[in-house]
């Protein structure tokens, strides 16, 4: 806070250091204790429970201890989070289940091409720092739509920004809750639907009571758990294999060994090489060879969309609202990327070590000699041998016998591993004690929970602060009721439509959600009637948080298939909707209200259109919008034979197209993958915004003066000045 003196700040830093130092020590001690328990014979399942519940309890305690009833504490943690700690919290906010669980798996599968994600998810912070973050901090907003409303005079811009925010954050949070469910189901043996519910309770404990303040301090604790959990297994592995405990340096050796082994596999007929003439899904794509999975356009497109998306995602931008000063906001971006870098530059090492292990100890092995860890994952349907789930040894042998002329040893094309398994199974592959597996599970859980916390908070803040406080409350009472009723009906209809999926205890999610909604209204209405204005706002924030959380848990229960693609969509949507309006709002005084509004509508609209059409209505894309099949990057041939598929009424009449439809995600314009729809949306958004701005009247002098204020760090925030 501005009133904090230097010595107070130093004291605060010291006590934070003491607290989190103690916490880290305690966590390491806890791991050692569990390792000892394992040695004396405590069963694995119990160790798993210890890990998950101990860490959840810690997050819960921090959440409860940090509960707050002050508006600025709830929305921006009182603006006194030091740069270093805000960096850690951003790291946890940023790194989701997709980073922790999925990233190394994608690198395993895609080799060099997977590095597009590594680059895209780090380089964006450069844009955050030089173009956006510090200026929004000086502006003094509580939410990103706050800035839009202010700069582009009025609630229509705010409303558009809220829609963009809710859309991209909701897509993203669903993937996180889904990840929580997978981890809890595997390590605790819970039913998937109940596991999702349990994860939800953990998330709500933190975010509900204390808002940004509780989430910040919990995320720091979660960062420590997740980074320890990610690094310990590969540090041990690297030491075992090469005698040096720095996997990031030693995996160059592993990569060379992979390349040598690939040549050997090709020579001995264990694998078939992907060539320009033929490159089917079961052919070997050398680990180091670029552009075999993505065309250069899509490779660089992913990098660009992820980078610009980073600088547009509200849940990341709002983390920089919490620092004490603009200067610290900038330094904080540096710390954020450093903490994120620690994980991202280790992910390729994970991929290399497990790929080497799979290539040397699984491929080429006699089918009767397969190692037992395979089957624990095969049971979950995550590892296939000879095209069938590897439930046990007999099933694997039978599956391979069924293939004509099978040589009896496992070939490259016989083995299929789900990418989510790579990180979670590395301890088992390497024969490490179970305590390490439990640790990895706790880390994955921390990653998913911390990101979900940040996202839910971003959504709920936008709904309570922007929609309720700034748009509905100023209306006359009768209008308020009308708007409230319309929203309630829309929400209830959405729940009824989306929630027809199995929930905990055999009851469908829609009934759970409606029950929750009813209970919520019953509790909130009398509270609201009694409460003062400030309290009302926070009650509303919490109630909406709960509602959003339950909705996304319900959606997660439908098991949407591909987490990485969903996360990619969120980035592209954020980029197309937010980036032009935010950046030009700061860097171009001439940007006008109508320019921003038309820019957002055009850019975001085309991105959403491209996404929805290619994913859900590909037939219409082909017949009405001139879309064609995407091409195979290596052979340059179409991925699907469109004429043949279109002739088949089974696929042709499927509205909306299911994930199994051969056209879904495989058509488009200019061979552009739909993850990269931001590549269409953002340039169009910029173009429309600039043209319309130049055609409309120059913004008033006062607005231009305020933009000048945003550009200078000194002084109070712009919002405080105005108030």
């Amino acid at each position, binding site marked *: 806070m501005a009133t904090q003196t*230097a010595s107070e700040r130093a004291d605060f830093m010291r006590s934070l250091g003491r607290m989190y130092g103690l916490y880290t020590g305690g966590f390491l001690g806890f791991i050692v204790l569990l390792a000892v328990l394992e040695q004396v014979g405590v069963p694995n399942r119990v160790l798993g429970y210890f890990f998950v519940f101990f860490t959840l309890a810690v997050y819960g305690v921090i959440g409860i201890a940090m509960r707050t009833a002050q508006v600025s504490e709830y929305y921006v943690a009182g603006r006194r989070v030091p740069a270093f700690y805000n960096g850690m919290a951003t790291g946890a906010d940023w790194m989701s289940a997709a980073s922790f669980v999925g990233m190394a798996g994608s690198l395993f599968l895609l080799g*060099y091409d997977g*590095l597009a994600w*590594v*680059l895209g998810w*780090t*380089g964006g*912070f*450069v*844009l955050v*720092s*030089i*173009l956006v973050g*510090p200026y929004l901090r000086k502006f003094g907003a509580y939410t990103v739509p706050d800035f839009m409303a202010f700069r582009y005079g009025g609630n229509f811009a705010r409303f558009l920004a809220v829609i963009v925010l809710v859309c991209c954050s909701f897509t993203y949070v669903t993937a996180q809750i889904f990840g929580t469910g997978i981890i809890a189901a595997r390590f605790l043996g819970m039913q998937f639907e109940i596991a999702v519910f349990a994860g939800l309770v953990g998330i709500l404990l933190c975010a509900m009571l204390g808002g940004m303040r509780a989430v910040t301090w919990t995320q720091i604790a979660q960062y420590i758990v997740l980074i320890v959990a990610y690094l310990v297994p590969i540090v041990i592995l690297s030491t075992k294999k090469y005698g040096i405990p720095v996997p*990031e*340096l030693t995996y*160059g*050796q592993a*990569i*060379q060994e992979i390349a040598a082994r690939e040549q050997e596999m090709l020579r001995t007929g264990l694998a078939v090489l992907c060539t320009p003439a033929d490159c089917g899904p079961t052919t070997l794509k050398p680990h*180091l060879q*670029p552009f075999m999975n993505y065309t*250069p356009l899509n490779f*660089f497109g992913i*990098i*660009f969309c992820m*980078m610009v998306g980073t600088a547009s995602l509200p849940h990341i931008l709002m983390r920089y609202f919490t620092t004490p*000063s*603009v*200067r610290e906001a*900038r*330094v904080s*971006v*540096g710390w954020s*990327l*450093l903490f994120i*870098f620690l994980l*991202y*530059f280790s992910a*390729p090492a994970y991929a290399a070590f497990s790929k080497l292990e799979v290539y040397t100890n699984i491929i080429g092995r006699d089918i009767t000699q397969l190692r037992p860890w395979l089957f624990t994952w095969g049971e979950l349907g995550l590892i296939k041998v000879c095209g069938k789930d590897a439930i046990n040894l007999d099933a694997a042998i039978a599956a391979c016998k069924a293939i004509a002329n099978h040589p009896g040893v496992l070939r490259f094309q016989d083995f299929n591993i789900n990418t989510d398994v790579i990180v979670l199974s590395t301890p088992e592959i390497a024969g490490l004690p179970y305590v390490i597996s439990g640790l990895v599970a706790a880390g994955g859980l921390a990653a998913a929970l911390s990101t979900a916390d940040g996202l839910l908070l971003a959504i709920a803040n936008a709904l309570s602060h922007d929609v309720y406080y700034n748009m509905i409350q100023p209306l006359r009472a009768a209008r308020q009721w009308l708007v409230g009723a319309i929203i309630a009906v829309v929400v209830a209809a959405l729940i009824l439509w989306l929630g027809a999926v199995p929930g905990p205890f055999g009851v469908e999610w829609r009934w759970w959600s409606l029950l929750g909604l009813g209970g919520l209204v019953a509790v909130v209405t009398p509270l609201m009637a009694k409460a003062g204005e400030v309290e009302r706002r926070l009650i509303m924030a919490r109630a909406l948080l709960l509602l959003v959380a339950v909705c996304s848990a319900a959606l997660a229960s439908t098991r949407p298939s591909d987490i990485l693609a969903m996360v990619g969509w969120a980035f592209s949507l954020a980029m197309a909707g937010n980036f032009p309006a935010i950046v030009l709002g700061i*860097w171009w005084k001439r940007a006008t209200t109508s320019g921003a509004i038309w820019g957002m509508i055009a850019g975001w609209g085309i991105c959403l259109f491209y996404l929805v059409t290619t994913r859900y209505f590909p037939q219409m894309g082909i017949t009405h919008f001139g879309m064609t099949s995407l091409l195979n990057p290596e052979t340059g041939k179409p991925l699907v034979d469109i004429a043949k598929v279109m002739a088949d009424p089974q696929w042709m009449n499927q509205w909306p197209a299911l994930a199994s439809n051969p056209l879904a995600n495989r058509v488009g314009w200019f061979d552009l993958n739909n993850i990269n729809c931001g590549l269409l949306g953002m340039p169009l958004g910029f173009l429309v915004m600039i043209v319309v701005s130049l055609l409309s009247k120059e913004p008033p002098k006062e607005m231009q003066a305020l933009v000048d204020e945003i*550009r*200078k*760090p*000194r002084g109070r925030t712009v919002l405080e000045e105005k108030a």
Partner: protein
Amino acid sequence: MQNSDDGTHWKRTTRLMLVHLFIWFFFGYVIHMFVNVLNQFTIPVLKFPLGFYMAAQGSLIVFVVMLFVFAWQQDRIDRDHGVAEDD
């Protein structure tokens, strides 16, 4: 200390922004367009092919260092023009 309203503060800020955007673009994109050329070189001792290494670690290290340098440079510009916050 110069007068903060003569526009030079913003000019210097803009120039700094462009310089960093250029470095970002070079290490984020340009260098990876030459991955096949770079892969012909191998980093001694560590044995990484250079093109792979730049995408897996090299560019990332540049980004991290860049952010701290940028924070320092921008702060210096702010101080020169008297628009920095009080310590």
